């Protein structure tokens, strides 16, 4: 007769502990691998995105590291639904913070960046990116996110905090403006 003997409760508790411990272990390993994989896939793009937003090479590197550090911390709570877009958004926000600080210091990091990108040469790729760096901030960001980072417009709208339709139209305008700039050369 099992009535009155809390065997079921013991078994239940034991199973819960085992399941939770196993799940924790597996979740930990999976998340560690996920972050590492993300880093390998996206670190360069995130760094370059921060550079396109006007950060120096060091500051861009710091922003990428900070974004991943935040991702690790965030993943201890609720993992972001779209970690790649989340990383770009974090880098974007960090770059904007730095931009605001630089304006308070009465310097323009964007202007510095635009003139300090890769040494000018006459190949098409360099000319193109030189033109991209002369676009307004949002157009530059959308172009990078869409065609270099291969994010869809939904993700881009999340990164920039704008409507999806606005992201589409900005992309269209950016391409048109880019063609104009390249035509000037």
């Amino acid at each position: 007769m099992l009535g009155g003997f809390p065997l079921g409760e013991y078994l239940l508790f034991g199973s819960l502990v085992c399941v939770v411990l196993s799940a924790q272990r597996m979740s930990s390993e999976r998340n560690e691998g996920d972050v590492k994989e993300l880093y390998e896939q996206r670190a360069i793009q995130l760094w370059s995105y921060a550079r396109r937003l006007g950060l120096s090479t060091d500051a861009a590197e710091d922003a990428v590291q900070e974004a991943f550090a935040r991702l690790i911390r965030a993943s201890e709570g609720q993992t972001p639904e779209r970690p790649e877009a989340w990383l770009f958004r974090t880098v974007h926000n960090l770059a904007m913070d730095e931009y605001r600080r630089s304006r308070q210091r009465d310097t323009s990091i964007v202007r510095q960046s635009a003139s300090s990108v890769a040494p000018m040469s006459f190949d098409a790729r360099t000319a193109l990116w030189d033109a991209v760096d002369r676009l307004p901030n949002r157009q530059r960001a959308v172009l990078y996110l869409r065609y270099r980072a291969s994010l869809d417009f939904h993700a881009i709208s999340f990164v920039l905090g704008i409507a999806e339709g606005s992201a589409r139209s900005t992309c269209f305008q950016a391409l048109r403006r880019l063609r104009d700039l390249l035509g000037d050369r």
Partner: protein
Amino acid sequence: MRNSEIRRLLGRGHPEEDAYRPPGLSQSGVWAHKVTGGPIVRVVHALRGALDQPATRRVAIIASAALVVVAAAQWLVVSSPRAPRPTGLQLTIQDRSAAALAGGVPIAAIQAWGGGAVAARQVGADIQLILLLPEPDTTWRTQTVQAAPRLAPNRGAEVRAHAVTCIDTNPLASFVYGMAVSETTLKLDGPQASGGAVVNGTFVFVLERPAASGANWSVSRTSDGYIIASGTFPGGVHCLRG
């Protein structure tokens, strides 16, 4: 230039990306993830409900027993020893509630970036700094130094680092992978701090004065060879390089 050509060139990335190599990812911190809610809790609640009903109690007990066996087997599998992964991720800090190294910052929040950077953990009353060797082309080995934190009330911390012997013939160039180290930085960016340099065979923290108002860091060397960094962190300071 055609749109397709523009897209193709954009897809190749900025030319400066070709030369850029991001620092190796070396992480310290806790990878503990809470298991809350979801199917596990729902199953447990269902079993609890079944245990309360005489008609379903026996089935619930059998199901629980089966669950124990499955879960225990699973636990044994996932916790069995495995060959070390060649990732260079050699440090896991277990204690997030450890005393602060600087201004109330949990030790576990210290991040080691840059491949061969410095991580830290609390061992008893000491802070143990650990130098990692994830990159095959450096000659560094793991070393530890002891640092004793002394906290000022809710503000700063004093960190003392013993001298360590440098075994690299060119320490300033390769101590922290990816950095041309003439001055290695101990970054104090919010809760993060990592870095250090070996100068004349002595392990040296280099702390930069943060730009945040109210922050006041200074670095000094004692007669017995300690490097002492002390000052105040007005909560989440952001340090700038240079």
